[in-house]
């Protein structure tokens, strides 16, 4: 078993590519930045603790760059890791006399810690491989297929786990809820067609930028769609009108107020909203 935990690994996918700076940009194969770093570290073919973090940082930054070039949408954590590595790299390159700010540990320590962390992840990788390589019940080894009719049940324990207890509880509560299920009134929505008609009626009056909430119908007392539904449907309808070229919509920032204006004359506040991510 010891052998399985020697530092030599075969990350064939990575090694086949060989080249120093080449790597497989296949995000599906990696679960997160740490997994990518581990795969990259393998290309250096040294003990993980003797890893060149500077080079690793370069490789990772190139990986992120390549991924973005190919239009992979990268999760934020990849970018956070990239900027942290860039920072660590720059600190490693600084002369040692330059002290880090405040109580920050020396860059070498941070680098060593990263190497150690990779080593830990690596150990777990190998551990899962080693486990899977063991003979498994009902795959490689089999217990008696036809135990005696008078079965001896191991009886010094009771078969019930906390998980089963929780599952039993939730199951009961669900059934209980289902028995008392009492459907609330159907939620009424402001129909999109209605919203479109409403907007077309109001359009001539939208010569100036007007906030969405002042454009949407206001809910009155009594039954009917909620205010949220009025607002949402009006927004949907307005986007259709934008598409038709009948109006413009803009927003300064995410979650800021939405402004509506009919297209054509009138003092504009700027370019229409660009609906690109």
């Amino acid at each position, binding site marked *: 078993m010891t052998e399985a935990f020697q530092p030599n690994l075969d990350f064939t996918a990575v090694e086949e590519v060989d080249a120093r700076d080449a790597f497989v940009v296949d995000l599906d194969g990696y679960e997160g930045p740490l997994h990518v770093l581990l795969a990259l570290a393998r290309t250096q073919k040294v003990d993980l603790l003797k890893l060149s973090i500077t080079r690793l940082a370069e490789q990772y930054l190139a990986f992120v760059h390549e991924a973005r070039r190919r239009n992979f949408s990268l999760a934020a954590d990849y970018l956070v890791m990239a900027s942290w590595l860039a920072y660590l790299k720059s600190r490693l390159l600084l002369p040692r006399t330059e002290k880090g700010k405040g109580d920050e540990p020396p860059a070498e320590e941070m680098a060593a810690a990263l190497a150690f962390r990779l080593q830990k992840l690596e150990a777990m990788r190998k551990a899962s491989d080693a486990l899977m390589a063991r003979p498994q019940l009902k795959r490689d080894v*089999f*217990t*008696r*297929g*036809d135990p*005696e009719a*008078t079965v*001896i*049940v191991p*009886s010094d*324990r*009771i*078969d*019930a*786990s*906390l*998980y*089963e*207890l*929780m*599952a*039993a*509880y*939730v*199951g*009961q*509560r669900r*059934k*209980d*809820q289902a*028995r008392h*299920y009492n459907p609330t009134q159907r939620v009424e929505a402001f129909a999109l067609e209605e919203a479109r008609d409403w907007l077309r009626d109001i359009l001539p009056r939208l010569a100036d930028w007007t906030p969405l909430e002042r454009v949407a119908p206001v809910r009155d007392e009594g039954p009917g769609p909620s205010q949220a539904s009025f607002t949402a449907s009006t927004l949907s309808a307005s986007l259709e009108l934008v598409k038709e070229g009948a109006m413009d919509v803009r927003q300064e920032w995410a979650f800021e107020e939405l402004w509506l204006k009919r297209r054509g004359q009138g003092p504009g506040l700027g370019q229409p909203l660009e609906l690109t991510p």
Partner: protein
Amino acid sequence: MSIQFAPDEAEIERRVEALLFAAAGPLSAADIARRLPEGADVGRAIASLRVRYEGRGVELECVAERWRFRTAPDLSFMMTEEREEPRRLSKAALETLAIIAYHQPVTRAEIESVRGVSISKGTLDLLLEMGFVRLRGRRRTPGRPVTYATADRFLEHFGLASLYDLPGAAEMKAAGLLDLSLPTGFEVPDPSRAGADDEDPIEDGDAPEFAQDFVGD
């Protein structure tokens, strides 16, 4: 992991042994031969296994021209006389236990109202007898119903230091048992905070009533 060379007699015997052991029922010589390399002498392997197991605790037996292992007939007394009651919790028992654990102290009527069915007499008895559940007190409501709570054995069995450690909604969520489809107002009570202010302790003289509680109907 296929074997390239022709297996020798001893190897054939090993294989027949494994096949007979793992099979779900008795196997005929033909059944066995089909799973061995061509030309393997099944009869010989069986004969030699038979000798090997003779007088052991397990023997190779032939029924209707099929072969199977079975325990030696003279040891059958061990298989029956000392057989113990299996202690697997039935579904009903597990469910009842779960409700008592989370809602304690809880009356029988309350358990039944959550489960939507009445509890069979045996279920609570079993849990009491196993030491998972105990009588805790009497609710100060008409009829003064007995309340149930978990006992120490419950904590021991489930490896809990205290009731405070019983997994709550957050863990149920983490375990994938709860999801967003839950109706409003669903909450998991915290049994470690259950007060005793609306109940009286069980007294010695309660025994007859208790019997009534269980034996009733």
